[in-house]
Every structure is written in structure tokens, then in C-alpha cells.
């Protein structure tokens, strides 16, 4: 099996799928890219068993073939070649690969392509189409709130709820929660599934504007198609927690404040907070908001006062400042509204008057137990 391909275009496609590869694998074959030639089409794939990504490009080739090539070495050499055609000559008997460039020849040993894990077939699936822009925004707004606790695997992904009116994306790690709803994206069937974090992170980098993403899904897998790029991932198994039940409905205390002002204040104050807990305290009285933090171990302390518009009882509530910063960073409006009821109940952060009418964002953050 021989083929000629432009080094730059091959590198571009491999870079898109390279993120799938784990730094350490139990199966040695997973350290390889799978090269598959049919006609003049080269399909390159990378897999970690849970997620498989593949892309296609045109090559000059006379016969079909299949080979697994060590990913790390291949990427390294491609990065260090200037853009020009390179020739791959593969001995399918002993899996030796020879790459010839203008500079010289490089030899490396591959593996049989047959060893590469099989990609699940799209069977009994439903599908929907969504613009890449919407998908990208949904991932960016929600994914940061997903958890990483191995003991709660369902929370490690983003919960997608589809129905004929809207699509809702929910992510939570039990301390913070984001609910992002699109009114302009719809699905014929009402269903729900949990997408794992890793493939969403990979997709985020592949989504270009003005393209459309086709999502197909069945009981076990989800398939994404963006142009020539394919991604298949196993869905997270299990039942997503009933998130609607934990979003407090009645929140009499309502704070409206400039987002940038609050964000910068929290950022400054949190520098002086405990490095493990990142705890900051918000004290609301009248129309003033006091933000303070303290690290008793080092006698560090910070205190700031902001003016805000506040309707409700005076109260004091403590939060992990990192959660606040992440959330405020992910809201686009000039002002935010923070709704609260009690120092031991969730605080809800909302954009004030969203210009985008086809989306709803709700962010929720749990406080710390302050006596």
C-alpha cells in the first residue's frame, strides 16, 4: 500500500483527532492512528475505546489498504516538515512504514489495522441537525459546570434533553449547575441522554461557524458529523439527577449588579481567600454589597464594598469564589441578577436582559455552610 499526501493537510486532519488519544493506554494499539484507504480517499481515525474520531482527505493512491501508525512519532515528524508532498510506502506483511520526504526517508513500525477497535455502527438511531454555532455555544456555556468525581459518573457529562419545543443542556457537579436552553433548536422525538465531557471538549475545537452538525443517537452511542469529521462516543450510563427539583423556585432576595464590577471584585478578593476552599463571603445590607475573604493560616484578608440594587432581607452568604468567577465569566450581559432565599440555599445567577431571545441561561451555585 502506497500513497502520496500533502504533509500539511495530513497534519491538519490528524491534529483534529489527536485529542482523542490518551497519554497512557492499556491497549498498545490505541497509541496509533488507523489509516484506511479506499479509492483515493484516506480515512484517519483515533480511538480511546469510548470515543472514536475520524476524518477524511484525498490522497494519490493506487490500491486500498489498512494500517495502524504510531501517532506520536507521526505527528512529531509532520510538525517538523515544511509543507510538501510526502510518500507513504507500507509493507502490509510486516507492517513496516517508510515515509519519504524531500529531505530523506524515515522508517517506523506500525501494527495491523485489523487490531484497531471496531467503531460502533449507527443502528436504530434518531437524528437531529443543529447549527455548529448553537452547539458550540451550548458546550461553552455548560461544560465547565460538569463534575469530575469518579463516584458520580453521571455528573461527569452534559445532560441533553430534547423535545419538540427546545433543547436543554444541563451540567452539574453537585456544587454548581448550569441549565442552558435553546428555543431555536428542536427535535421530533422527546428524549434525553448524557454526553461525556471528553468528546464535547474535542468537538468544541472542531466546530467552525456556518456549518451544520448532524447528531445521531441510539441507546448507547451518539454520532456527530461535521463535514468530513466524524465523532462517535459512548453515552454515559445511568440516570441523571432530578435537577429541576433542586432549583429553588421562590427567591425573594434579588440582587442586580454590573457583571464586570462584581467579577473583578470577586477576583481581587479571592486572591486573599484560603487556597483550598476559595471561600468568599457576600454580605448584603440595603444597597451595599460587602465582599470579603480571609485566610487565617497566613493572616490574609480582603474586604470590598460595592453598590448594587438589592431587594430583600439583609443576609450573609458564603461561596466558593472559583464557582462565582466561572459563572460570571460565562454570562455575556452587562448586568447580572443573583436570586437568593437563605444562606444555606442555592444562589441563582441569571443574565439581566438577554438580547438573545432564543436562549435561556440559568446558573446555580450552592453556598457553604456558614454558622
Amino acid at each position, binding site marked *: 500500500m502506497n500513497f502520496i499526501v500533502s504533509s500539511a493537510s495530513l497534519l491538519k486532519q490528524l491534529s483534529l483527532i489527536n485529542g482523542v488519544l490518551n497519554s497512557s493506554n492499556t491497549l498498545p494499539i490505541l497509541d496509533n492512528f488507523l489509516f484506511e484507504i479506499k479509492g483515493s480517499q484516506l480515512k484517519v481515525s483515533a480511538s480511546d475505546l469510548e470515543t472514536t474520531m475520524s476524518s477524511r482527505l484525498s490522497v494519490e493512491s493506487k490500491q486500498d489498504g489498512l494500517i495502524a501508525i504510531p501517532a506520536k512519532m507521526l505527528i512529531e515528524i509532520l510538525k517538523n516538515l515544511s509543507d510538501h508532498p510526502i510518500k507513504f510506502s507500507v509493507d502490509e506483511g510486516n507492517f513496516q512504514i517508510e515515509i519519504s520526504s524531500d529531505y530523506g526517508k524515515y522508517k517506523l513500525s506500525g501494527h495491523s489495522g485489523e487490531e484497531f477497535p471496531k467503531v460502533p455502527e449507527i443502528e436504530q438511531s434518531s437524528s437531529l441537525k443543529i447549527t455548529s454555532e448553537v452547539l458550540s455555544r451550548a458546550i461553552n456555556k455548560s461544560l465547565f459546570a460538569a463534575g469530575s*468525581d469518579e463516584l458520580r459518573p453521571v455528573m461527569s457529562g452534559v445532560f441533553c434533553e430534547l423535545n419538540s419545543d427546545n433543547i436543554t443542556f444541563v451540567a*452539574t457537579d*453537585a*456544587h*454548581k*449547575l448550569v441549565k442552558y436552553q435553546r428555543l431555536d433548536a428542536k427535535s421530533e422525538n422527546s428524549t434525553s441522554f448524557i454526553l461525556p465531557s471528553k468528546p464535547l471538549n474535542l468537538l468544541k475545537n472542531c466546530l467552525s461557524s456556518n456549518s451544520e452538525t448532524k447528531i445521531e443517537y441510539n441507546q448507547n452511542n451518539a454520532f456527530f458529523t461535521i463535514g468530513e469529521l466524524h465523532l462517535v462516543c459512548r453515552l454515559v450510563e445511568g440516570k441523571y*439527577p432530578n435537577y429541576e427539583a*433542586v432549583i429553588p423556585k421562590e427567591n425573594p432576595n434579588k440582587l442586580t449588579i454590573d457583571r464586570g464590577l462584581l467579577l473583578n471584585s470577586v477576583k481581587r478578593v479571592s486572591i486573599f481567600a*484560603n487556597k*483550598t*476552599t476559595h*471561600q468568599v463571603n457576600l454580605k448584603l445590607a440595603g444597597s451595599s454589597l460587602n465582599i470579603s475573604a480571609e*485566610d*487565617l*493560616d497566613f493572616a490574609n484578608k480582603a474586604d470590598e464594598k460595592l453598590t448594587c440594587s438589592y431587594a430583600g432581607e439583609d443576609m450573609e452568604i*458564603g461561596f*466558593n469564589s472559583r464557582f462565582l468567577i466561572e459563572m460570571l465569566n460565562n454570562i455575556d450581559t452587562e448586568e447580572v441578577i443573583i436570586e437568593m432565599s*437563605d444562606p*444555606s*440555599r*442555592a444562589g441563582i445567577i441569571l443574565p439581566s436582559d438577554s438580547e438573545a431571545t432564543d436562549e435561556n441561561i440559568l446558573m*446555580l451555585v*450552592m*453556598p*457553604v*455552610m*456558614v*454558622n
Partner: protein
Amino acid sequence: MINRAIAHFDLDSFFVSVELLKNSRLKGKAVALGSKEDRGVVTSCSYEARTFGVRSGMPMRLARQLCPELIQVRGDMDQYSYYSNIITEIVAEDVPKYEKTSIDEFFIDLTGMDRFFGTYQFTHELRHKIINETGLPISFGLSVNKTVAKVATNEGKPNGEKRIEIGMERPFLAPLSIRKIPYIGKQTSALLKQMGVEYVKTIQAMPAEAFQQLLGKSGLGLWKRANGIDNSPVAPYSERKSISTEQTFHQDTIDVSMLSSVLLGMTEKLASQLRREQKLTACIAVKIRYSNFDTHTKQMRISYTSCDHILIKGVKELFKKLYSRRMLIRLIGVKFSYLVHGNYQIDLFDDSVDMINLYKAMDKMNTRFGDGSIKRAAGLNPRKKSFNSFNSQQD
């Protein structure tokens, strides 16, 4: 480098002195503090008792054999803390920098003070002030570093004061037994005695390298201390790294339901202490000692918490893994480490508002009416009421 001036204050048989203060009839008698039960140990004893050979840490039964007329007193930790705090206040008022190393011991850094008062004059007056205001005997040693000051205090005791002139540190230590040097314990001293090293002067005559070869890393430190060299600073405040409690049973037991009830009570007590001090723990450990003194501990990391329900679950899990031998247990203990300041991050799904409010209410009652005013029924054990509070805090 300027010479430092470090004073070490140590209350003489502190617990017994407090008991004498409350009950003057005990004066001049052989008194020992500690539980009267069979397995009780002497936590402190009067100088009269010491003449009979009674020592702290000795089993009460042995102490009774040595000294038949020994008067045993149960002891009251709260009372001792109360007096200890009074003394701390007096010291804090007068000195620039002090370190409280235990309930009855202080180091005071008086470096630079000699220009104003004369350090000896000052410490002498401070000692009398403490004696006059509390009625408790206290001794001190004054020198250029912590080690020599501490040894000097022990030499000056009881009710004495001792100053080691600058430059006299080595000669002062030379004639003393090696056991007088801090951190030379039973094993090290046994090893050294085997080699014929009985007095500090022998260590002083040895080269540092030889000592280091013999005792490893700690050897050099020991050699320096024996030569009166100690650069450790007086650290005004040291953060507690863990809290723990343990309990020795009067009779060895395999009663698992009783054991888990005791564990629950201990966990609850420590957790409420965490919350009161606004701290969180990230590591829990359980310790058991079998009747044959085999001691096993098991620990696990958790995410930062101070909540009973998480800690109790973890402690029970550890105990289940640890106690597999169906052997009689002599002692169990619980320890929380990796402590940080902060408050518990409430969980969106696992914690209900009612539960958080329950914690708050319980903590409020325990703060107002005393620790243990309200607790889980499962942690109450009819066979055992209180834990040995002498072990409840470790640095």
C-alpha cells in the same frame, strides 16, 4: 549574630497543683491523678508521690503498689484548661512573642529585651506575677535557645528559676544524664547506654559525623542539642494539623455494635469540634489495638467536609475494612487530618435544607450549653459515657 534570650516556663506538676488549690487538705500528701479503674494511668503526680517512685504514665495499679497511701484524684480537664488560659493571658499581656507548647509549658522570646529590663529580672518578675495571681507554682529556665532553657527549667524544678549564662551552655549540659536532653527517649538512650554513653559530656566529646552515622538523620540534631546548639525559633502560633480521639476499654471487647456506637460518638464529637473551629478535613483514619497490642490504622482521603453524615459513613467503612480478625479489641480511635479553614460546601443533591438547618441548630445548642448537650442516640453508650479527654487533641 546577636545572642537570643529564650525563657522556658513550666508549671510544676500542673494538674496536681490545681487540685491542691481546690482542696488544701491534699497538701504535702502523695497525690496521683488519673482514672481509678484498673487500666487507668497516672497522668500527673505530686512531688511527694514521686519520692515513692511514682511517675506519670505509670499504670495506676503499679503506683498503688509503690505507694500504698497514694491519694487518687479523678482529674478535671476543663479546670486545668481554665487555669492554663489564665496563665496564657498573663504571659500574652507582658511579652512580645511566646509559644505555648502544651497546657503547662511556654517558650518566651525575650531577645533584645535585656536593653530595657534585663531579661533575668523580667522573667523573675513574670514568674512571681503568675504565682501571685494564680497560686500555682511555676519554674523557668533562661538561656540562649529553647533546648538549654528547657533543660534548665527541669534542673531548677520544683518552684525554681535557673539562668544559664551566655557561653555556659555546654558546661551546663555536660554533667547531666543523656535522658535530660529533649527528644532522647527510651530507645535512643538505651542504645547510647549500651555503647557506654551515659552523660552528655560523652556526646560532646564525640564528633558530629560519628553521631550522625549511628543515629541517622536525627543524630545530627541530637548532637547539636547536646552541645547546646539549637536555632529553632519561638513560633508564636502553630496550626494544628489533625484532631483525634481514642479510647481504651476497661475490658477488651468484640462487641461490634458497642464499638461502632463508640466510633460514632467519637466522630460526632470531632466533627462538631471541626465545625466550631470552622475547619474542614480531607482525611479520616481509624485505629484499633488488639488485646495483644497489635495496632492497626487505616485511612482514606475524602473531599473536604465537616459533616457528621459523611464522616460517620467513612469511619464505619474504614472500621469494617480494618476489623477483620475477630480478635478482642483493647483500644479504638478516630483521627481527622489535612485540616483547612473553611466551611462545608453544601451539596445540591445529597444535602437537604432541613439537614443543614439541623446541623446549625445542633451546633448552636452545643455551643450554648456545652459540647455533647445534644447528640445522636446511636452514639450514646450505656457502658461508656466519656472519652479520655487527655488524648483528645494532638499537635
